């Protein structure tokens, strides 16, 4: 005997049935946590983030901008608790490195969000609308791709002065192109997929299709790309800081610390080594997490 369900019951049954299975994301999570490098990286990065937040709050005995004139370029020592030494101006390197790490991470996250917003919107519109609009929008992206962007960012920094908001916007505005391509390609491919058609044929509402089928499928590549983009953005900021165009003294970032450390490396090598190692560890962790996520969400590459 067939039971005839009213549409509301049907929807409930359907969603219950879907919940029982292991979702794409459950699978991905299990795969991710099996990846030792990614898990270790997450732990280390977590510790770094906590340290950076503590550094921003200024809980350490030394402030990042306090100048001790009598303690210039001291190597790491227990004396006065300069655990990582002091820089050429007599400021505590540990405090400065933590503040710099915080600024770098913040730039990484905010600029990534900026580029995520632009890229997803642009790509989704191009993919959904299709046709001539799509052609025009993607042609525009192609042209931007071939520009020597770094020069524009440098000019931008010079023109509008070195403020931190501008760094977010400038870097984000440069890095959205690949995101737009990924989202557009994904949307375009999904629009023609059989399971979307099947869902339509089964009478699933448009909103349900977008929520259950389109968003989860676009989300995978986007999440992977975002994690891999954070290190790229951090690099872009440190690149600008290294050239003397990033954040301004006494505020600092890892790139700026490396830049000054490189100038003093012959007399005070720790001023180079400490921020350089911090940056390396951070980038390693982010890259391992990104790679782990990619393998977890999109396992066909292995």
């Amino acid at each position, binding site marked *: 005997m067939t039971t005839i369900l009213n549409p509301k019951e049907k929807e409930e049954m359907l969603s219950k049935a879907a919940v029982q299975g292991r979702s794409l994301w459950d699978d991905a999570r299990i795969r991710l946590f099996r990846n030792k490098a990614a898990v270790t990286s997450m732990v280390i990065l977590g510790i770094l983030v906590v340290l950076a937040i503590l550094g921003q709050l200024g809980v350490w005995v030394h402030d990042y901008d306090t100048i001790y004139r009598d303690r210039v370029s001291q190597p790491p020592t227990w004396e006065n608790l300069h655990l990582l030494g002091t820089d050429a101006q007599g400021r505590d390197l540990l405090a400065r490195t933590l503040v710099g790490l915080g600024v770098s991470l913040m730039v990484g996250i905010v600029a990534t969000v900026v580029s995520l917003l632009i890229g997803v919107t642009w790509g989704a519109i191009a993919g959904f609308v299709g046709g001539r609009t799509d052609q025009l929008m993607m042609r525009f992206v192609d*042209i931007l*791709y*071939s*520009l*020597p*962007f*770094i*020069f*524009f960012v*440098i*000019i*931008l920094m*010079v*023109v*509008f002065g070195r403020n931190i908001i501008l760094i977010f916007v400038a870097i984000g505005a440069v890095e959205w192109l690949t995101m737009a391509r990924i989202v557009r390609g994904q949307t375009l491919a999904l629009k023609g997929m059989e399971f979307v058609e099947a869902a339509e044929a089964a009478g699933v509402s448009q909103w349900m299709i977008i929520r259950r089928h389109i968003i989860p499928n676009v989300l995978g590549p986007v999440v992977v790309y975002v994690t891999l983009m954070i*290190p790229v953005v951090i*690099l872009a900021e*440190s*690149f600008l800081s*290294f*050239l*003397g*165009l990033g954040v301004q003294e006494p505020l600092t970032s890892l*790139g700026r610390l*490396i*830049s000054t*450390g*490189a100038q003093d*490396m*012959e007399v005070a*090598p720790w001023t*180079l*080594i400490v921020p*350089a190692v911090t*940056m*390396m560890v951070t*980038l*390693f962790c982010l*890259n*391992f997490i990104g790679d782990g996520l990619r393998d977890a969400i999109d396992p066909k*590459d292995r």
Partner: protein
Amino acid sequence: MFAFVLRRLLVAIPTIIVITAVAFFMMKVAPGGPFDLERPMPEEIRERLLAEYGLDQPVWKQYIDYMAGLVQGDFGPSLKFLDKDVAELIGEGLPVSLMIGALAMLVAVVLGTFLGAIAALRQNTSGDFAVMSFAMIGVSIPPLVMGPILALVLGVYMGIFPTGGLNFSRYGLSVLVLPVITLALPQIAIIARLMRASMIEVIRSNYIRTARAKGLSASAVIVRHALRAAVLPLVSYLGPASAAVISGSLVIERVFQLPGMGAYFVDAALQRDYTLVMGVVVVYATLIIVLNLIADLIYSVLNPRVSYDS
């Protein structure tokens, strides 16, 4: 093919115009000018100077004048190096930048392809693991970290390589080693990763199995069949790679005190040396456009399925 090249070159012209216009007007929006010194100069002299360089004209007129000069190959005089033309400055800096950049690209392509192919052919062995760890290091350590560290360890502590300058007569070619390695390292890493991924895909494909089945030697299968298909994704990476090398050279030239073109750029922008900034932007933009075109052409030669003559 010819039509394709022509079409691309025609598209390049508006691109260059847009790039120059954006750079030009952005520079002009910037507060300050090339003659703002710490000690203010008398207003009369300032006006004379501005008039001398045509900077008293409306901005759009300045742009048209600049472009008119550019079409005839005239980059204009530098506003800061008072005895030199921008063309002269670029003529001094560009060969240095090109040499370092080209060497780095060469090293990156050769080593990266080789390492990636080895890793793919020995997939999941210790060799593969070693190459991939090296690639991870290369991706995670940018030139601005690697450069100073190499200079500190190999230059200052061990004294193997000179740490800066371009003194060929004193040190010979060894001055190039550290800058080229630093610049090439991230690209070696990226190319090795790309190569490994595409090689793994290729050697699993049917036509490679066919080639093996008909009794070709392993080396013939790899060299003649697999490599050719596997390098295709690399070719499309060449355009972005050259852009990355160019921006990397800004850092390298500062770290190793090389008298290249990138070294001028930041200072020129800070000092509002409009013509020098424009000159560097125009040269690099042209370079990137040309390199992208070359990459596309190589791609079509290697991949017969791609035809640009439709």
